[in-house]
């Protein structure tokens, strides 16, 4: 079984992104499944960032530490990741930084400097990169020092040009050294470079030479590694981020308007979509719909208040409509969410959660907006809340969210997070046949006399004719069936009952298996309940724990409104032990569970650092709970 992990660290803007993307592509071409998460500071260039790539022949879905190879191309990366490589793993570093002292690295956070110095001094070492290298040797890592200066010069000489993109050359050297050591053939790296820099010959050649230099060097020093081809060889796959797949899901799901105000980590979704605002219709359907190309209007607004209100306006006019944001932006949308609810406007709000409170740690992850999402909207406003655990789920959920919004004529929040946004995943073809686009009771014609936008119906859902196709009133005030403002107690009651019926329709219309997914069996030693990107690390930890004889069941919540009451209740009743993984301070998931089911989770596993949750953290936490019966385990792996 192949299960490897590779970490590439360096200064933001310093080539880490292309190195990571080239590495991921080479590994996918080699036939492996890939999950690569990007960790970065709220900074444009210069602060430390890294890519942690998981490589598996089964399914890659979480980061783990320690990794099998670290590529540290600056001194800060050496110090930051000197504990992240496993015994026998390889650590690539630049020999020209050997004399650099911790204190001379300006961007490095003070407390980290102190921790590094303390650690090195415990081992009787000083505070230079050379000392860190000694420390790594003592930990059993294989050191691969590369003279980067010489390598960059060599690239320049061999390619016959000045290497204007020094960072890329440097990173490709480092990455290639690690891949050579792991046993990925050079051809894959060459192909990946060609694919990633498609069309830019000026860039391709020097980078291939950079790869050659590294491969020669590893061959001489350690010998090239040996890795069999992975099981996906020969397939056509995708390599995409969570931001990408949500954009794809929306476009495939028939979105026609997306509004947004720039915010991390949501903006990249909108930008990717804008880059694809004109898409081709499937060949077999082009004739049927009489169009070859479809447009998606992606509009940058003046603020998030405008973004949600504009999306609502578009929805009223008949567009399939969404907006994308993060916690701070969603906070500004609060009032309009309530309007969308009483106006019965179908709109999707994608929330890419990041670490708060307030601006907090804007480029880091978390699940702190669960209750915010559930309860946003004053005055008894309700919405559907659906959360995605991985890239595939996010793609299909984006479509589902659009369907539910139109079917139930209600706002739908799609909860995702920064881990998903910034992680790159290899993906197989999506199952287009499984996708249905549902527009509910929408029609563009009206001949039944006066159109009643809020007609009282059996299921609480009124026929929907867009603005422009039947004279009508849409109102944020309590209204009559036509839409006139009214405060009459009986009409009020009738309208509240109508909206309650609609909630019943949602209860009936979203079956349990769309609300929750259960992995493993009820005779497990422990049942873990969680949601979102906790899924990957938990499923991976399940495998690891199983090997050690510990059986885990995982209950993955998909929708918080409507809540999977039956399954969660059953899980508590049947499980010997229950732990909730909650990536937030308040244990919000546990609170939601308690609110809906009355069950109080006896154990909670929490993380606050804003770094992606990792497999080994869950393994450790589960053991801690089973062995020592601790109530609360806080994990914090990852630099």
């Amino acid at each position: 079984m192949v299960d490897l992990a590779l970490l590439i660290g360096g200064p933001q803007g310093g080539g880490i992104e292309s190195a990571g993307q080239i590495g991921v592509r080479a590994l996918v071409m080699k036939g492996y499944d890939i999950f690569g998460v990007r960790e970065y500071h709220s900074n444009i260039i210069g602060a430390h960032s890294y890519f942690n790539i998981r490589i598996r022949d089964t399914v890659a879905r979480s980061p783990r530490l320690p990794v099998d190879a670290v590529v540290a191309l600056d001194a800060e990366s050496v110090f930051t990741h000197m504990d992240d490589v496993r015994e026998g793993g390889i650590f690539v570093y630049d020999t020209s930084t050997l004399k650099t002292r911790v204190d001379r690295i300006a961007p490095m956070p003070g407390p980290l400097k102190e921790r590094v110095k303390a650690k090195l001094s415990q081992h009787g070492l000083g505070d230079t990169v050379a000392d860190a290298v000694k420390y790594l040797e003592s930990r059993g890592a294989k050191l691969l020092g590369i003279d980067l200066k010489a390598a960059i010069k060599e690239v320049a000489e061999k390619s016959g040009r000045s290497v204007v993109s020094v960072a890329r050359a440097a990173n490709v050297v480092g990455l290639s050294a690690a891949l050579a050591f792991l046993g990925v053939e050079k051809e894959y790296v060459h192909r990946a470079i060609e694919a990633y820099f498609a069309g830019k010959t000026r860039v391709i050649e020097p980078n291939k030479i950079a790869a050659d230099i590294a491969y020669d060097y590893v061959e001489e020093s350690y010998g090239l590694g040996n890795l069999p081809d992975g099981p996906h060889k020969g397939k056509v796959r995708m390599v995409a981020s969570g931001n990408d797949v949500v954009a794809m899901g929306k476009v495939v799901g028939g979105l026609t308007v997306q509004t947004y105000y720039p915010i991390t980590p949501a903006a990249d979704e909108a930008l990717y979509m804008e880059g694809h605002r004109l898409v081709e219709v499937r060949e077999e359907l082009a004739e049927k719909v009489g169009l070859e190309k479809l447009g998606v209007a992606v509009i940058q607004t003046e603020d998030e208040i405008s973004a949600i209100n504009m999306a609502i306006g578009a929805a009223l006019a008949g567009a399939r409509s969404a907006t994308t944001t993060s916690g701070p932006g969603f906070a500004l949308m609060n009032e309009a969410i309530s309007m969308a609810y009483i106006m019965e406007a179908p709109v999707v709000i994608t929330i890419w959660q990041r670490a708060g409170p307030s601006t907090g740690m804007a480029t880091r992850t978390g699940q702190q907006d669960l209750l915010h999402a559930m309860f946003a909207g004053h005055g008894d406003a309700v919405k559907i809340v659906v959360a995605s655990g991985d890239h595939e789920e996010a793609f299909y959920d984006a479509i589902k969210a659009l369907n539910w919004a139109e079917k139930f004529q209600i706002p739908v929040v799609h909860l995702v997070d920064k881990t998903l946004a910034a992680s790159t995943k290899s993906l197989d073809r999506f199952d287009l046949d499984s996708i249905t686009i549902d527009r509910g009771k929408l029609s563009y014609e009206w001949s039944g006399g006066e159109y009643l936008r809020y007609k009282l119906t059996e299921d609480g859902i009124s026929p929907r004719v867009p603005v422009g196709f039947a004279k009508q009133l849409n109102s944020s005030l309590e209204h009559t069936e036509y839409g006139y403002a009214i405060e009459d107690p009986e009409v009020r009651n009738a309208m509240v009952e109508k909206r309650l019926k609609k909630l019943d329709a949602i209860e009936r219309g979203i079956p349990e298996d769309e609300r929750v997914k259960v992995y493993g069996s009820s005779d497990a030693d422990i049942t873990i309940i969680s949601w979102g990107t906790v899924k990957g690390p938990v499923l991976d930890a399940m495998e690891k724990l199983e090997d050690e004889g510990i059986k885990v069941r995982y209950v993955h919540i998909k929708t918080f409104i409507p809540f999977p009451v039956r399954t969660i209740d059953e899980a508590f009743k049947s499980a010997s032990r229950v732990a909730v993984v909650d990536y937030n301070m308040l244990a919000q998931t546990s609170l939601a569970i308690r609110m809906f089911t009355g069950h109080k989770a006896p154990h909670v596993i929490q993380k606050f650092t804003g770094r992606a949750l990792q497999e080994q953290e869950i393994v450790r936490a589960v053991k801690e709970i089973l062995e020592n019966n601790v109530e609360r385990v806080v994990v914090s792996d990852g630099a």
Partner: protein
Amino acid sequence: MARSWLEYRSPAWVQWCPGCGNYGILTAAFKAFAELDLDPAKTVVVSGIGCSSRIPYYINVTGVHTIHGRPIPVATGIKLANPHLTVLVMSGDGDLLGIGAAHFVALGRRNADITVVMHDNAVYGLTKGQAGPTLPAWVQTKALRAPNIQDALNPLLLAIASGYTFVARAYAYHVDKLKDIIKEAIKHRGAAFIDVLQPCPTYNNVMTQQWYEQRIYYIDEQEPDYDATIKSPEERSEKVARAIAKAMEWGDRIPLGIIYRDLTKEPFDARIEKIMPGYLEHPPATRPVHYEGKPLVDPFKVFTDRVVQA
């Protein structure tokens, strides 16, 4: 005329105070819509929250009564989704220039083909008479507990600076004059703004009907040579300067009429069409999104920048 203006009157009871200037604006709207023979289904009046914002209930066209300050983004969304509709925003000074000022500016920058009619009573009528953004400093209207210590802003200057391509001022009780300006604004292709001076006898006891009528005059009557219509970009600096000077007139004499018009700037929908050809013919409101429930897009054929051959 195909429709009588009475057809645009809705059956709802109008709940404004007896002397309210809003009645004048409402009647002018009826008449303008009738003279333009607007289709009630395809004509959309969007409002925020305030006394004036009740107006969608009173006009028998399609109406959207939104939340305080946000009619402009909602209207922009409607117009974005379906550029073939006639879209008006009719809202108060507090709504448009207080809480909603960011959107007011943004609409000008986009030059979306929307007509904004501002019911300018210089107070927050519905919340019982607090100072509005157009109430001058040191004025103390009836409901204020102390004189106003915030300056008034000049809506016309803000509109010109924001990029509105039609800027006018009118008076609520001169119904026929107001009607003509509303018609011109609707016919204009681009963002149009009409600042309608609207007496609020209940709360604004300073800027009363009498106060206005002693001061207002019509530019086209008294200065027939006034021309601030930009027909080519070269005229811009001169005519903007002229319009700004006119917009600054306030006090003993208050000019009414079309202050500024720019015929050279393309509206938002034309801009979208440029970056997304086909938009006007198949706008977001009506373009196909599925075929018998099947998706129209294959991600592996469209997002080829993410496809990798393993």
